[in-house]
């Protein structure tokens, strides 16, 4: 039943996003704008290695903050969350649905942001590194979505959520940032370099598992009175 309810909530969230187009376009526009700013701010047409990796992941992380801040926006209007809380569904369904929605938003964001990054800033060709990069992106997105949905739930009923979300979320995501930047760095080099990809992917998988399980365990209490 939890998964059926989660599917219903996810379907509803996607229908709202499709109608309002508030989260994904904002994230994509923000990311492209930041890449343009870096392009001019660094005064370089091409970057590579750790600089490229850092710019990419910090931008994606900050774009995530935008979506997390809005993740419960529809529920806040007209107390719609109460409608879910009155239904015979496990509160975990809300978490799973929100995390899945955020994961999909991130995938859509990256479909726009990666080509923009490649065109505006990146020196090396991404084509060869794409399979490895996709693995990094998937594991990083699970971490961002898992922690993002938890923080969104925590901040949803607070008045200062625009402040609380980044203050809580960004420190929690530092391990994801380190691992994804380290894993991506050799993939964005002009010349091939030795890579610890397996180690960092393993680290991210562990991080994802720990935080998703932790979130599933505590989310019920976040939505309690």
């Amino acid at each position, binding site marked *: 039943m939890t998964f059926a309810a989660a599917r*219903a909530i996810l379907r509803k969230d996607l229908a*709202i996003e499709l*109608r309002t187009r508030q989260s994904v376009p904002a994230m994509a526009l923000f990311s492209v704008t930041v890449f343009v700013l870096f392009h001019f701010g660094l005064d370089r047409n091409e970057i590579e290695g750790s600089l490229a990796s850092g710019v990419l992941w910090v931008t994606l992380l900050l774009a995530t903050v935008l979506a997390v801040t809005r993740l419960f926006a529809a529920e806040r209007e007209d107390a719609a969350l109460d*409608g879910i*809380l*009155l*239904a*015979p569904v496990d509160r975990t369904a809300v978490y799973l649905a929100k995390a899945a929605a955020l994961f999909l938003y991130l995938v859509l964001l990256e479909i726009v942001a990666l080509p923009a990054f490649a065109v505006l800033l990146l020196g090396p060709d991404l084509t060869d590194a794409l399979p490895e990069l996709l693995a990094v992106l998937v594991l990083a997105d699970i971490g961002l979505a898992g922690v993002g949905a938890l923080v969104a739930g925590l901040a949803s009923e607070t008045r200062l959520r625009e402040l609380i979300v980044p203050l809580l979320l960004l420190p929690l995501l530092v391990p994801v940032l380190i691992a994804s930047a380290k894993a991506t760095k050799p993939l964005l080099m002009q010349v091939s370099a030795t890579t610890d990809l397996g180690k960092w992917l393993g680290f991210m998988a562990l991080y994802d598992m720990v935080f998703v399980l932790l979130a599933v365990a505590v989310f019920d209490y976040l939505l309690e009175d």
Partner: protein
Amino acid sequence: MSEALALDALERRFGERNALSGVSVRVPAGATLAVFGSNGAGKTTLLRVLAGLLKPHGGHAEVLGSKLPDEAWKVRGNIGYVGHESLLYRDLSIRQNLLFHARLHRVPPDRVEERIAAVGLPARASDPVRELSRGMVQRAAVARATLHHPALLLLDEPRANLDPAAAEALEPLIGKASGKTRVLVSHDVERTLAEADLSLGLRAGRQVFAGAADAKQVRELYA
């Protein structure tokens, strides 16, 4: 189950302030409890406690045979709540909202169209809630609250924003004719007393009377 609601010295606080204190009342299944009190008396807080949306901080509360807050999960899905807010998603249509709630409550989808017809909104069922008048939103909220055939209706000014014809049309769903146990909050003293089996008077969160009440007693609450 003979009693749908059993409250004994119920308490609820917000910080240091007592929003409900010493509320005791028993409501048989199928009966209507009218709750009276001026603004801020604790009526909405009482409904939210009964719905399991707020935890009681003291006393004893039993709803449909389940003790709150420990067994609140048992009564979820058996309560129809109409509050000040519609609990609907403004960017979805009435139909999308009701289909969403039908999935949560495991109600067959064909019941959605039946409810839309029952509240007289087939022509606007595909419009986003954001574009509807307040009266229409209220009708949609009633459709949502009664979609899953709840045993207990918690109704906070359910006829607010409704024209007389719409209010009449909703009677089979939320009126005495529904046959459900109802907790009804309304400032329409005469009409509410006429359809109530029991009354509860609240002043600043404290119970002033419970049981049979007359219009004079109720009016004194608002004095």
